Structures are given as structure tokens and as C-alpha cells.
């Protein structure tokens, strides 16, 4: 019998195990590869330390300098908005916290549901705005690859399905929840093999940059 409850149990059971396995395998392999490979040996004489400049770049690259802001205010504001929204929704929605606790044993206080709901709505609008901007901006349109659109679609569907499930717009609920979990699973499976990897590598990359600046004695 194929019905919404069977579908939900499939997504909560075998499919979730599969997704988590592919994700953990892929992500651990990639991160270890990056860390063990390290960087090309630099034979020049070091002109400064690496750790502090590395950390400083992690910070400075996250906060846009005034020049960047002036040139591309939309990218900075909307980019920040939906990234923050995504993180808040992912980490501070109570059912998500319950899920993370069951996986990692870690738990923290959540936010009231209406707050998360509002943040999710803002995130959805911001995501749509990024797509419109990508399609209408001459340069962005040229440099966009199919992978960019794939990643946007996955993120958007993940947030949208969660919003629909929470607000119970799709019925019955087991179908809505199952769809949301399925989106999350596709997201997890694709994550290690697309630019979504930046969720885990962004700060490593920024630190490497900063560390390299520090060694060369330039401002990080």
C-alpha cells in the first residue's frame, strides 16, 4: 500500500540513512583531502605569522568592505539576509533541534515558531529575489552555470517545503513532512559534490587565504 504515511516512514527511515551515509562519506572525504593535501610548499622566507591573519580574513571576508557594498549592495544585503535566515531556520526551529539532538547528542534552546516562520518567509522572498537578480543582471546571467541553478532550486525547495509543512498548506501532513524530509535528503546527498560544500569549506578557504597573506606580510 503506497500512501502518505508509508512515504513519510520511507523518508524518515531508509532514505534518511542513505542520505546521511552519502553526505558523511562525501563530506568527510573531501574535508580530509583538503586538510591532508594542505597547500603547496612555500619556499620563500615568512614575513609574518599565519594564524592571526587567517582568522582575521575569516572575519573580514564575511563582512563586506565599503567598496564592495557600494558596487553590489544587493548581493551583500540579500545574500546576508537569506544565508542568515537559512541558518536560523535550520538551527533554531525546535523540530530541527530535536533531530540534531538525536543525531549528535547536542542540543540548544530554540526560537518560538512564529519567529522561525517569519524568518522562513523572509528567506523565501530573498531567495526569489536572488534568482530574479541572477536572471536580469547581465554579468551574473553570463557567469551562471547549470550547477548554480540546481543549487538554487534545491535550497529553495528545501525552505519552501518546510514552510508549506509548518503552515500545513499541503495535506495530509505526513505527505507535506515527507516531502520536506525528501528535499533535505536530496540536499544532503548533493551537498558534498556541488558548491554547497562551501557550507563546510568556506571558513577553511578564508583561513588559507588569510594565512597566505600573513606569510607574505600583506594586509589580511
Amino acid at each position: 500500500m503506497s500512501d502518505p504515511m508509508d512515504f513519510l516512514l520511507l523518508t524518515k527511515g531508509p532514505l534518511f540513512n542513505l542520505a546521511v551515509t552519502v553526505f558523511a562519506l562525501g563530506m568527510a572525504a573531501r574535508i580530509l583531502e583538503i586538510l591532508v593535501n594542505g597547500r603547496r610548499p612555500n619556499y620563500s622566507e615568512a614575513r609574518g605569522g599565519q594564524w592571526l591573519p587567517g582568522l582575521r580574513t575569516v572575519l573580514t571576508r564575511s563582512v563586506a568592505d565599503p567598496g564592495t557594498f557600494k558596487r553590489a549592495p544587493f548581493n551583500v544585503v540579500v545574500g546576508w539576509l537569506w544565508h542568515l535566515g537559512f541558518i536560523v531556520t535550520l538551527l533554531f526551529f525546535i523540530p530541527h533541534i530535536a533531530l540534531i539532538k538525536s543525531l549528535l547528542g547536542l542540543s540548544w534552546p530554540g526560537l518560538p515558531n512564529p519567529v522561525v516562520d517569519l524568518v522562513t518567509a523572509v528567506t523565501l522572498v530573498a531567495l526569489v529575489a536572488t534568482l530574479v537578480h541572477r536572471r536580469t543582471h547581465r554579468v551574473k546571467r553570463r557567469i551562471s552555470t547549470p550547477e548554480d541553478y540546481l543549487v538554487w532550486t534545491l535550497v529553495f525547495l528545501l525552505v519552501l517545503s518546510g514552510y508549506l509543512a509548518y503552515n500545513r498548506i499541503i495535506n495530509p501532513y505526513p505527505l507535506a513532512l515527507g516531502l520536506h524530509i525528501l528535499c533535505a535528503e536530496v540536499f544532503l546527498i548533493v551537498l558534498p559534490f556541488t558548491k554547497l560544500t562551501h557550507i563546510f569549506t568556506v571558513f577553511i578557504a578564508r583561513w588559507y587565504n588569510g594565512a597566505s597573506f600573513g606569510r607574505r606580510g600583506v594586509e589580511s
Partner: protein
Amino acid sequence: MRVFEKNPLEKGLAERLREHGVSRRGFLKFCAATASMMALPPAMIPAIAAALERARRPSVIWLSFQECTGCTESLTRSHAPTVEDLILDLISLDYHHTLQAAAGEAAEAAREQAMRDNHGQYLLIVDGSLPGPDANPGYSTIAGVSNYSMLMEAVEGAAAVIAVGTCAAFGGLPAAAPNPTGAVSVMDLVKDKPVVNVSGCPPVPMVITGVLAHFLTFGRLPELDEYHRPLAFFGQSIHDRCYRRPFYDKGLFAETFDDAGARAGWCLYRLGCKGPSTYNACATMRWNAGTSWPIEAGHPCLGCAEPRFWDAGGFYVPLSVPTGPASDYLLAAGAVGAVAGAVVATKARGRAKEEAAVRQPVTVEELEQKL
């Protein structure tokens, strides 16, 4: 017991009640209670009264298969209008092996008689799942007849089939993995007759009588959802009708069964409440003559009205938590991935070192000579 009494079938209900000394006000009150029981809005009361005036007394055959009698226990606790005085008086319960006085061959004869006399007219109620046609029929028999043959024989002359309880509706506990008796639901076997599922383990008593009342009142079955459940009772989730919903919305959750939140009556989501994915009428009809219901008593909803609730993971595990050992997979796959990544990277480094060792420096002069 008047349950098995034969009454003339031709008189309408209003007339029968009047003969019993029930006044018009009593009849209207009965209609108000019936509307409440059928979960219909009070605006429907005049229509119910008009329909009940003409209502006939249907014959009902109740078959119990692989069940625990909890559904019958629940039915007999239906309070409004009292089951003995009204509902069972209004239907002719011709066979129910737990409630009837007759036993053995006499009981089976009563069933066969009712099936003959009311062929094509009677309501067939089933509680309990049954071993499917491919399973060993010996797992459950009545008077030496397998459940499967008895059901199929009784279905043949039935106007409609009402599957009472999650076992009859969806397989229930007998169908729990690894399903040793090959238990299936009524819906799995009956394809050519209307099937109504009144799920719940057990169903709310008023919901059982409500569905009967609907058939009695309007002479047809109520509107159903995709699981063949009456929408009037199963149209909304427990979560949507829960009086604790405001706490869910405010983010106030009980974390254990005895913390300050639990005592203040906060939302039970984190204690495993399946209210969001469960569709039933508990939140409004309540149990024990409208006294209370599980969540009001401080216990999370188990989701007993939904298919597969018996195999859907722990009762006290939040709905968002996966049912399998996902953290084991996460850990194992992470470890394997880390080793694989490290091995690949180390090999690459080794190759780079080897190549560096055999590297032959080239000067600009040498290059220019070659070109």
C-alpha cells in the same frame, strides 16, 4: 437485552419514539445530540430531524477477527444518546459474538438468518484484521470457519462495510513487523463494496456511533478522506484542534513528564506527540463521556488512528526524528569517508614527493638550446 429484538421495520424513528412516550422536544434534543455526535454543525439539526423522521432500522452484523475487543469496549462506553436506550435500539444488531446472549451454533444461525433476511441491505461492521488469502487460515477462525471466508461471505450481501478500529482499517498491531499471521485490513480485501474506516486504537466511542447515526439518519455513508475515514471526524489533525496548540506556537514545550513545562500544560511535541501527523476527533469529542483525552491528561498522542503507527518509531521520540539508527550511519560513513579522503590525499602527496625527488632542474640556457 433489547438489542436483538425484532421490531417492525416500516415505521420511521420519530413515530417510534413518540410511541415510546418521547415528546417532540425529546426528539429535537435527540437530534441535537445526534448532530453533535456526527460532528455536524448545529445548523444541520433541522435537516437531521427531517431525515430521522423517515429513518429505518437497519440490520447490523458485527464480525470480530484478530482483535482485542477494545473497540467493542469503546463502543459500549458511547454515552450519547445512551447506547442501550437509543442507538442499539435504532439499529438491529443481529450478530455480535461478544455482546449477544446466544452462543455456539445458535449464534452462527442468527448471523446466517440475518444475512438471508436482509440480503443486500445490512451493514457489516468488522473489528480486527484477518489473515489474508495467502496466509495460514488457522491463525484465526470462528466456529471452524476462517476469518477470510466468513468476511467474504458476509460482504457479499452487505450494503456497506464499516471497519472499526485500526486493525480492521489498516492491519493494526497484528500486522506489526514481522506480521506473523499475514494480517491484512478489510480495505485490502473488499474492493466491490463501500468501505468506511473508523480508525483508532480504539476509536473514540462517539465516532463509532456517529458513523452509525449518519447511516441511520441519511441512509448513506458519510463523506470520506483518502483512507476511507469519515471527514467529519478525521478531517482535521489532532494538532490543529489541540487546546495546547498556542504553546506550540509560542515555542513552549515540556521536556520531560515532570518538569515545570509539563505541569503548566505546555506542548508535548518534544515528548513525542504525533498530533501533527494524526487525524482524529479526540481533541473535540474527548473520551469518557467528554471528560478528557490523552493530551489533556498530559500524555503525547501516539497517532493510533494512522496507518503504520505501530511500526513508526518510538512513541516518545519527536516526530522530526528519523526512525532508523541514522547517527550510527553518520558516524560510520564519516569515519570511512575520512579514512578514504586521507588515503587519497596522502597518496597524492606521496606522488608529489616522488616527482620532486626525481626532478631535474632546467636552466634558461638549456631551454633556449632545446627550442
